[in-house]
């Protein structure tokens, strides 16, 4: 077995085990930490696939940003050591059934399909290539999605601020009513 395979097995084992733990854990903070492990292993997979930039982005954004965000919100909204009541088993059985049947269906479909790879030569992916394509307006350029994403991020920022702040609107109303 090559080291590639070994690493792949390691990473996929981590992913599968910890993702199952995430969705079944009773303690919420532990679930968040398991999620962190899953995300880190995914970044490892990306490294294996030779997408270093994306792996770095994954680590930065997901593991460093979103998981922290989740932990903050956990702190804000519930006790850390809040234990969940046990689930109604009817819900979990039906969901499990649906999920397993979906999984089987997908896996069977995937295995049935013959994927034919293209015969063209692989391109070397480095930062310069990525940066240029991100901003190029030619055929393989991604400047439009780039701009859209930037607007989306702006909107998300504003939305998050507006939704999560409290109190201010009431003062504005009382002032206008006096006039």
């Amino acid at each position: 077995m090559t080291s590639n395979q070994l690493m792949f097995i390691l990473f996929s084992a981590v992913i599968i085990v910890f993702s199952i733990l995430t969705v079944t854990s009773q303690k919420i903070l532990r679930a968040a930490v398991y999620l962190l492990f899953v995300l880190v292993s995914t970044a490892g997979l990306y490294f294996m696939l030779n997408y270093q930039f994306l792996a770095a982005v994954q680590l930065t954004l997901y593991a460093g940003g979103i998981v922290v965000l989740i932990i903050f919100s956990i702190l804000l909204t519930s006790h850390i050591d809040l234990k969940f009541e046990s689930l109604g088993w009817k819900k979990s059985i039906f969901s499990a059934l649906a999920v397993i049947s979906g999984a089987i269906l997908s896996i069977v479909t995937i295995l049935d399909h013959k994927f034919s790879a293209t015969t063209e030569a692989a391109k070397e992916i480095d930062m310069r290539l990525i940066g240029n394509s991100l901003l190029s307006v030619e055929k393989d350029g991604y400047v439009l999605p780039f701009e859209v994403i930037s607007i989306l991020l702006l909107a998300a920022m504003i939305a998050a601020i507006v939704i999560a702040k409290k109190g201010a609107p009431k003062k504005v109303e009382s002032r206008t009513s006096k006039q």
Partner: protein
Amino acid sequence: MNTGIPLYYFLILATIMFFVGVYGFLTRRNLITILMSVELILNSVNINFLAFNRYLFPHKLEGLFFSLFVIAVAASEAAVAIAIIINIYRRFTTINVEDVNVMKF
């Protein structure tokens, strides 16, 4: 091409991760854990895209950029979702998903 690891392995891995995420989405009580399951789903999709890109289309970059944008969207969506969750917590004092069912018959 990565030697020794066929494409199928990545795809099956991504499928399993996806359905685990779906299971979590359907089963969990807390809104935040539901959000975590959604992140699982998004990640599985990312793995899929990158595997396809690497194995089937090594001369193109689409999978990469798609995953990049998925990450960006996931981040902004998580931010907005957290904001909503905080607002719900302020109003209902609970973030049990079953208690947030005011929009019903």
